[in-house]
């Protein structure tokens, strides 16, 4: 199956409150690939991730997105999730009163129903989650706490990756999951991603820094700036950006 197109974004144009943010983004992700999207603040990286996940408040003014051969933009957010698309949030919300285990199980069962499977048995669910928590070095006590309630920044990010590990998406969009993490937490997040990496599954990593890419080596790196993909290349581009910043690319684009 490796090599089959999974996501195809063509000339995507998006506005927020009437202001253009994405001005014609093109991106093709094949099965099994890891893509990194880098770029300066305000370039539209998070907007792209949220639009792909179906968040309201964005107006798609042009272009198309195909996912697994379907029109992604025509699907509701929950339909996208059940079709295997996962968004790891830059700022995961706290939901006091809804416990982690309940959400994880409800989400997993939503996926299973979509695939025509029966709901997971309580014992199997617990075994699965505990194993995944071990991978992410998350204290089991957090399972019975409210979703992200009182979690540290690092715990929230690890919890996002835990959800990803449990739900086993086909395409994971991770929006600055590495931001605010110390080096140990960063390695854990990278371990989570690498655990799930397979020829069937793809990742789009939105990141500011090259350091995550030391641990999760991407197939392609894209620079998104001013609402467009200015350059796409192999992992060496991330190192070049680390050395030279973004200005040279912006100048080239302007020229």
């Amino acid at each position, binding site marked *: 199956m490796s090599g089959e197109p999974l996501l195809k974004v063509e000339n995507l144009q998006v506005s927020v409150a009437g202001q253009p943010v994405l001005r014609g983004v093109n991106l093709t992700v094949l099965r099994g690939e890891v893509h990194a999207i880098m770029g300066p603040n305000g370039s539209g990286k998070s907007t792209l991730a949220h639009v792909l996940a179906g968040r309201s408040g964005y107006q798609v003014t042009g272009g198309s997105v195909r996912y697994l051969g379907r029109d992604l933009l025509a699907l*509701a957010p*929950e339909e996208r*999730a059940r079709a295997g698309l996962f968004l790891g949030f830059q700022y995961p919300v706290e939901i*006091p*009163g*809804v416990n982690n285990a309940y959400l994880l199980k409800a989400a997993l069962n939503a996926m299973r129903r979509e695939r025509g499977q029966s709901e997971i048995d309580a014992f199997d669910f617990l075994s699965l989650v505990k194993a995944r928590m071990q991978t992410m070095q998350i204290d089991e006590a957090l399972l019975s706490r409210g979703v992200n309630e009182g979690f540290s920044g690092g715990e929230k990010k690890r919890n996002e990756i835990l959800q990803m590990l449990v739900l086993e998406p086909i395409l994971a969009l991770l929006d600055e999951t590495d931001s605010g993490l110390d080096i140990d937490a960063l390695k854990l997040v990278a371990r989570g991603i690498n655990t799930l990496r397979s020829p069937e599954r793809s990742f789009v990593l939105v990141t500011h820094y090259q350091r995550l890419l030391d641990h999760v080596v991407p197939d392609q790196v894209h620079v998104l700036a001013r609402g467009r993909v200015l350059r796409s290349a192999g992992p060496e581009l991330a190192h070049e950006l680390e050395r030279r910043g973004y200005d040279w690319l912006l100048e080239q684009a302007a020229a």
Partner: protein
Amino acid sequence: MQTLERIFSEYRHWQDGHPPETRRHAAAEQLRELGLPGVRDEQWRYANLRALEQVQDFAPAAPAPLAPALPEQLPGFARLLFINAQPAADLAAALPTGVSLLPASGQWYTLLGADERLALLPQLFGAEATVLRVDGSAQLEILYVAQGSGASYPALHLELAAGARLKLIERHLGAHEPGGLICPHVRLALGSAAEVQHYRIQNLGLRSVFYDTLSVQLAESARYRICQVALGAATARTSAALRLLGGASALDWHGLSAARDQQVSDCRVRCDHVAQETVSTALFRGLASTRARVGFDGDVQVNANAHGAKVRQSLRGLLEDSGSEVNLRPRLTIHTDQIEASHGATTGQIDEQLLFYLLSRGLDPATARALLKSAFLGEALAAIDIAPLRRQVEQGLVTHLGDLILAAALT
């Protein structure tokens, strides 16, 4: 005819068949002096006072046979049942160890503030209050069931001896005629180091009118923890006056009001910090849907002598549609500068960020909304630490609101 005049007219007519009692005359005089609350009274701003005008009959309802199914009795709790405010059985025989029935005093209750003025109606029309004294430790459930037509005036006075412990469940149930009035007055006096956990569940039929007064006084180191849940009645109003008279006494108020279909549910909690090192916390969660109105007025007064007082308020409202209202008023008046205080009040619709988070995990919108609503209400329900009671209350909420997920799976 003005409502007040109608009340006196009905009182005179009703009184003809009853022996004269000093307390009723005293209540009548005080009511005439204070008058009924009006829309311009700040303390009654969000109450539906029009419902008072529409009360069918202020004279007490006749005793009625028991009709509705009662909630399952909770293990370890002695149950006292009142139908239309009349005891359904011999009270003394039903009391648990540690609780005794005191003879009616024949005295009237002097109101401590205009907030309590509707408590004059039970004095005017009702039987004498049931007076219970608690020594030691006890668990008691009191059910007030309203039936048929006419008004019901439950009146309860609880005295807790020093160091006494009481878990008290107080429920108001019943399917009343439209405009049927239920007007309770519950008083508690906690002796030093006494502790009360009070669970008040109002789940009346949706045609009733409920004006409720709660008066609580706490002596030194006494602790009063209350969880009040208001679900039923077309109009529901609680006027609570709590006085932290003894040093280091503490109040912990958890309130939940869920109103739908033009219900008006309003609660005013006045708490006076009179002594030093007193603590009061108030958590309120109000949910309004389909043109309902919910109000909560948390009025905390810290007196000049109440050095070291601590006050916390967390009031939140959830609106299900644009035609509904939640009015929250955190108020704090401080006459000393040695206190710690914090308060917050927010009202809004379901948070779109939270909703999107759940949708992005594959939950359908109806489930996600129900989950968020349940979590919102769950913050107040967490104070109900009696598991079977909590299940009953959750079931009542599900019946009332329909789309909740109040499973044990929630925190």
